[in-house]
């Protein structure tokens, strides 16, 4: 297309093969800007399908496209306006053994328009390995940013610590909730216990936790002895028990909101300093019914009204009935349900369960609207911020490919102008790589603080390596002995995987070498021991990135000054932060590690917004 760019730049753009990862809010806008700038060869990959709530900003999609693959519809919509470009659409995840480093190498440039950390981290590593420039982008409400990542020249996506998802100790969720979010997490766990994928269930995350250190005194043992009937036997088979009683709402209600609560009450030590819960009987609900006053201003949105106890119980029964029917109908196919905030019954179930449990524990109840935000970790998103970020991405794409890398800067879209009046605020310079980064530095190392007598090899593989460090196909070697303890190709017996790390010789000071075949990413894990015996809220491990240590120990003044201060002065207004266009998957559950997080769904796929 003629018009703006010089013909020499245009001829480069026409020849360049671009990979766009994500056809959501930012992706749609990037695709349009790329084509309008003169790019002709674009591959777009997205594993997501279109939802109604996308339509307020993902302008390439319309109501009749709901349920269809984003990448394919985006391609078709663009081609109607610009028929002479070549777009290849992939309806699949970018995290895929088939899409290795050599596949990435075919592109001149990769653009991330993603909504979750796991996929961003993966593409970051693939581009570093393939030595392909990566443009990374994200928005959060009114704010956003676009940045260039080139190996050796700039920071990589993992040079800066990411905000960790909020996690909650299992005991808090199962025994002593004190905030609405605890009840919401519990309710999502209950959904999975009743309807989720059985292989992924792991240990019970709903019933009272008898291993609670605070309840381990005489009282708990006494309670165990007297209450073994419903306390221990049913917790092993919540699903089977629910099936046997045909998901009868009053029966389930009785177990979860009366029996289990009675059992918790019998763990007297728990209630020495806490307000004890009140077990609730199904038949008593009508008598307890009350009027709930709601915020009149926003009464317009039905979901923003608080429900009375009676309404919650009615919704509980109704949604349970519907979910049961749906669960039975999928027995010949998927065999399980996936919790989805946009599924009416699943959302109704979590709202009502959460509010009933909140009633029992005397915690503030929430509207369905608010619970949806928390349970689904909804990030607000608007067309305008996405359009501006996408445009900044494409400005940089043109710079990179026309040999003008030096002109590229991380640019922030701000909600309000900074002290210099900038709404779009660029950094002063390209930001150099961090020497402490465990991915892109020459000394790649992280520290793992871990209870080596408790954490099993399986937990190490799934929770530490895959969920926390985002590796895909790891081979794990103990440096001292060169003993390989885990590879991604071999199948292992449970007996082997369930052994704690200490049995493999892992101890204080051990260096564990991790090599990921797909990402061709290699780093060391330095072990320091922790002991969680008797600690109620401690998790079995914590990954400590060396960049994290540095960030908390000394706040680098140079870094604070780099955000567009030509005059070098510091100004507190200028605290633009990296924002993520996060989603549900940012909050993955770490079920095995005595800790529950918001999104408890066993979600194998990585969604792209």
């Amino acid at each position, binding site marked *: 297309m*003629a*018009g703006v760019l010089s013909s020499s730049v245009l001829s480069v753009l026409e020849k360049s093969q671009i990979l766009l990862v994500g056809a959501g809010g930012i992706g749609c806008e990037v695709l*349009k*800007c790329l084509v*309008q700038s003169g790019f002709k060869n674009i591959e777009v990959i997205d594993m997501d399908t279109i939802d109604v709530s996308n339509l*307020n900003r993902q*302008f390439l999609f319309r109501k009749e496209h709901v349920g269809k693959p984003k990448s394919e519809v985006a391609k078709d919509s663009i081609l*109607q306006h610009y028929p002479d470009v070549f777009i290849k659409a992939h309806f699949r995840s970018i995290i895929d053994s088939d899409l290795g480093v050599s596949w990435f190498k075919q592109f001149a440039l990769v653009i991330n328009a993603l909504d979750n950390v796991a996929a961003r981290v993966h593409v970051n590593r693939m581009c570093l390995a393939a030595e392909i420039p990566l443009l990374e982008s994200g928005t959060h409400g009114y704010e956003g940013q676009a940045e260039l990542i080139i190996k050796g020249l700039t920071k990589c996506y993992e040079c800066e610590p990411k905000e960790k998802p909020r996690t909650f100790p299992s005991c808090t969720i199962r025994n002593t909730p004190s905030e609405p979010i605890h009840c919401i997490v519990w309710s999502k766990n209950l959904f999975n216990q009743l309807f989720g994928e059985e292989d992924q269930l792991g240990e019970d995350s709903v019933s009272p936790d008898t291993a609670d250190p605070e309840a381990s005194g005489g009282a708990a043992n006494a309670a165990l002895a007297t209450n073994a009937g419903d306390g221990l036997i049913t917790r092993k088979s919540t699903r089977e028990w629910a099936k046997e009683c045909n998901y009868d709402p009053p029966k389930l209600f009785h177990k979860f909101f009366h029996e289990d609560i009675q059992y918790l009450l019998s763990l007297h030590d728990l209630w020495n300093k806490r307000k004890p819960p009140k077990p609730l009987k199904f038949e008593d609900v009508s008598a307890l019914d009350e009027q709930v006053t709601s915020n009149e201003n926003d009464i317009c949105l039905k979901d923003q009204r608080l429900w009375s106890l009676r309404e919650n119980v009615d919704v509980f029964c109704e949604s349970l009935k519907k979910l049961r029917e749906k669960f039975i109908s999928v027995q010949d196919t998927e065999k399980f349900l996936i919790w989805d905030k946009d599924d009416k019954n699943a959302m109704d179930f979590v709202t009502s369960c959460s509010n009933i449990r909140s009633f029992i524990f005397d915690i503030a109840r929430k509207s369905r609207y608010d619970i949806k935000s928390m349970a689904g970790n909804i990030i607000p998103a608007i*067309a305008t911020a996405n359009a501006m970020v996408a445009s900044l991405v494409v400005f940089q794409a043109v710079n990179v490919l026309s040999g003008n890398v030096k002109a590229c800067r991380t640019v922030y879209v701000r909600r309000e102008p900074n002290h210099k*009046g900038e709404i779009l605020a660029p950094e002063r310079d390209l930001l150099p790589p961090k020497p402490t980064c465990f991915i892109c530095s020459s000394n790649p190392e992280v520290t793992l603080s871990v209870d080596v007598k408790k954490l099993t090899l399986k937990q190490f593989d799934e929770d530490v390596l895959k969920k926390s460090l985002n590796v895909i196909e790891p081979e794990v070697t103990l440096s001292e002995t060169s003993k390989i303890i885990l590879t991604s190709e071999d199948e292992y017996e449970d007996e082997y995987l369930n052994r704690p790390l200490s049995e493999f010789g892992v101890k204080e000071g051990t260096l564990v070498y991790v090599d990921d075949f797909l990402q061709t990413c290699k780093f060391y894990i330095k072990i320091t021991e922790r002991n969680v015996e008797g600690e109620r809220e401690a998790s079995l491990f914590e990954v400590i990135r060396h960049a994290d240590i540095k960030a908390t120990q000394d706040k680098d003044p140079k870094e604070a000054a780099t955000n567009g201060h030509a005059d070098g002065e510091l100004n507190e207004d200028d605290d633009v932060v990296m924002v993520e266009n996060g989603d549900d998957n940012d909050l993955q559950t770490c079920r095995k590690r005595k800790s529950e997080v918001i999104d408890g769904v066993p979600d194998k796929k990585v969604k792209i917004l």
Partner: protein
Amino acid sequence: MSVDQNCITEEEAELYDRQIRLWGANVQRSLRNLKVLVIGLNGVAAEVCKNLILSGVHSVTMMDNGNVSKEDLTSQYLLYPESIGQNRAQASLKAAQVLNPNVKVSADTSSPLDKPISYYSNFDVLCVTKQLPAVVVCLNDICKLYSIKFFSGDSFGMFGYLFEDLPDQKSENNELCSSFSSALNHQWTPKTSLKKRKLEDPSYLVFKILTDFRSSNCRDPSRSFEENDKRVLSDLRNSVLKSFNVEDDILPEEYLENVFGEYGPTCSVIGGMIAQLVVKSLSTDSSTSYNLHLFNHLRCQLTGMNFILSSQSKDIIPPPVEGSVVELEE
């Protein structure tokens, strides 16, 4: 209108969920009553229309009396290859309407100058693009008359600007009012702090050169007349530097290299920011500190400035054309 009728429906709550969670149900209700007129259906206007239609305003009227050229297609998403030769507003109608069937979208093929002044009182928001600066000033004045929210913006190739004038600004302080003509006719004196700023960012000079180009040539710089236009731009650059009494190296030549036609990504920035300011103007706590935003395309920096027309000059700046210009908030 009764409260019930004005309630957000289930369908709307679902469709607009991600933005209601950001700006709240009240702003969404105000949006639903908002009548928008967009003049000049080029790239920036198409982005404004797209973003506001997606957000769920009451209506968008697209006004343009020109026809679609091949060049328009590169930056105006609402057009199709077969639109060439058709009226720009008419040709944009189909793609604009499918963005959101809840919004009333219409096309008007007349020129803004053909309309009686009272016509504009039908709208809450006016957004002007691709008009001669004198026309923009005139429309700005009409909006003041009817307390209509006024926006204008353009992409000159990669460079871009947008201007905002909200009626409330005047009522806060009767002496001062924002106007496009004050932004356009700003006088350069060593006393203005703008001089300090321009050492970092020469965007205002680029804005001046390009609006002068449009005023005197009745068109924008184009690759079709590249040789000629480069020469004209170079002359304008010299005269602007001279009139502002600043050194040659303040404005590197490269700032004028990619200012031809309209550029899609710049339209996204300008059109995105205009739409965002429209939404912002609906929230009760909206305050505007800048009325002119300049997009420095070499740095991807969008910087606000404030130009205010004062009846009593408080500064010692020699009065320019109409009224005196003081610059606040620097």
